């Protein structure tokens, strides 16, 4: 029972939602499947919608809603626990980037790209049931030179970043002894970004390094025999400035604080469902950028023990 509870606690913070405009690779806050027993295969399917419509100059809102950026992501994450301590996650995103501008003259300009994003491989080691550490890589499998009408689009509209990134992952989850259903958790995810050396042909582009700190609480409620796990998280994201040909390019960096209410439920022994949203409560962008307005993420987690033959969905 405690293991299932910890499973719930860990999955909630890790299934946070994508962060744009950090290059259209919404993975840093989605990665990291929960710890599981040896032989357990987990498949996480998520849909993630990220809407950016608030144009800001640093922390000041410019009250300009003419621009809109949306990222729709279909996120597949496959994890297998090789031993009780060691597991590997594979994260495969399919991304659709949209940009819509409604001019004051009434015309609408719309651009999009879509395709396979950058795949992430994350080997993880669980020191205890409560602490997991991972170190992985984001492999540039997504295109970073997509064009629209023959014109190459900017980096943050591309499905991939074109760069090999390193990822450090840390997760902690625990519960109150006085109320075992009430858990608390924290995550640290750091992405050291690499350089795309074929941006716009022969130039280089590098997204800023990204750090995310997540802390939250979750509880378990039984309502009409239904097991409901509400949660509330605070997520801080710090992204450095981007670089074009090694020159600062204030395109996607900044500091962001989000409030993430969410809920999940175990549908069966093998299947759980979650939905959460992300509401920005503080934003400071580098230069002038669209900042997050709302994000919604929902998905299903299938969990099966390949060593047990009595598995049922």
């Amino acid at each position, binding site marked *: 029972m405690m293991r299932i509870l910890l499973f719930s606690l860990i999955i909630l913070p890790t299934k946070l939602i994508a962060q744009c405009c950090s290059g259209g690779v919404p993975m840093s806050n989605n990665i990291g499947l929960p710890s599981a027993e040896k032989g357990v295969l987990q498949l996480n*399917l*998520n*849909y993630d*919608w990220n809407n950016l419509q608030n144009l800001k*100059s640093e922390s000041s*809102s*410019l*009250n*300009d809603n*003419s*621009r809109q950026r949306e990222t*729709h*992501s*279909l996120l597949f994450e496959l994890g297998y626990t090789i031993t009780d301590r060691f597991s590997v996650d594979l994260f495969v995103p*399919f*991304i*659709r980037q*949209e*940009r*819509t*501008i409604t*001019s*004051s*003259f009434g*015309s*609408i*300009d*719309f*651009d*999009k790209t*879509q395709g396979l994003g950058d795949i992430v491989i994350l080997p993880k080691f669980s020191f205890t049931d409560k602490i997991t550490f991972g170190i992985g890589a984001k492999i540039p499998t997504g295109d970073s030179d997509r064009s*629209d*009408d*023959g*014109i*190459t*689009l*900017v980096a943050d*509209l591309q499905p991939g970043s074109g760069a090999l990134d390193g990822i450090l992952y840390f997760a902690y989850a625990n519960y109150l002894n006085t109320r075992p259903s009430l858990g608390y958790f924290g995550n640290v995810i750091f992405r050291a970004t690499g350089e795309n050396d074929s941006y*716009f*042909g*022969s*130039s280089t582009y590098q997204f800023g390094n990204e750090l995310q700190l997540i802390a939250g609480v979750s509880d378990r409620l039984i309502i009409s025999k*239904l097991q409901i796990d509400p949660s509330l998280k605070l997520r801080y994201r710090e992204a450095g400035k981007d670089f*074009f*040909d*090694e*020159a*600062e*390019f*204030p*395109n996607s960096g900044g500091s962001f604080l989000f409030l993430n209410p969410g809920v999940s*439920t175990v*549908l069966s022994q093998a299947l759980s*469902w979650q939905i959460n949203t992300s509401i920005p409560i503080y934003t400071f962008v580098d*230069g*002038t950028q669209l900042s997050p307005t709302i994000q919604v993420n*929902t*998905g*299903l987690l299938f969990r099966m023990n390949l060593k047990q033959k009595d598995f049922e969905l």
Partner: protein
Amino acid sequence: MKQAFTLTLLLLFVGCGKEEDPSTKATTTIYSEWLIPTSLVFDGGPGKDGIPALENPEMAVIGDANLKFMKDSDLVLVYRNSGEVRAYAHPVLDWHEIINDQIGDDHVAVTYCPLTGTGIGWGRELNGEITTFGVSGFLYETNLMPYDRLTDSYWSQMFNQCVNGYLFEEIPQFFNLIQMNYGALKNLFPNAMVTTSNTGHIRDYNSYPYGSYQTNSNFLFPISNSDDRLHPKEWVRGVEINGSAKVYQFPSSGGRELILDQFNGEEIIVVADKSKGFIVSFLNRTIESHELAFSLTDNEDSNIILEDQLGNKWDLFGKAVEGPNAGLELEVPYSYMGFWFAWATFYPDIALYEAE
């Protein structure tokens, strides 16, 4: 809960494959034929009209409270018609790039690219109709590409031509703009009207949106040719004669300088004043078989900058305002201010004026 489960599955499998509703999401029609290599045309990020051009913006006389955001060192682009002088402030143009305005009977689009520093006046009458220009969001050689709202054709500011669309190969009408600093404007044209910060948009006109870009050696988009004879962001005035270009710098001394030069068969007159931030250029002319011999006037706090051997005095716009030929004007060649790298990129064989 079953409904939630179904909804999730629906989102999962439909989300990324959705088709846009054409009634709500229009796309721009871009012709297949381009006058410039599309390999050097890039999407700048904000998208078409993501940087909002202005139309007939509010103007105020110097000293007005709505001009408090202007510092004496800020640059302006000055246009004059029928005695009316209007100044378009760089701090506003940095955020809007194009100002569509009417000065007297002139319908002018003040186009300004913050990345190349180039400010050029274009006529807004196309195919016999008055229209406006907007910011396409594309950059060619890291330079502004306007589009016109009459035909949705795409233009290149420094290429000075329509490069894609219905008006393919059309050349816009050129209007001479004089760049100077705001302190000089107050001094030389105290009755000028200046763009205010009441643009209808909320922007921080006190801050420059591109950080240290104007002074560093970096670019934000690729260029095809670089030339290290000068610092890439040094302000110069380029003059194009028959497809070739030559640039003129501010005097290193910091004062005012008169340059009499020959280029491509034309006699060029250049007056550069570093403290006031202007470089102007004219083609010499003859009056009744007299080729004019110019010299600088003594009073640098006047907009009358030149005098000739016939007793004429000429102002910053090249108009004789005193003397026997008052009313005559010097022809202004196709010329404008910009960063050195931009001129060197668009004109790889560009000449650089060097005093003998």
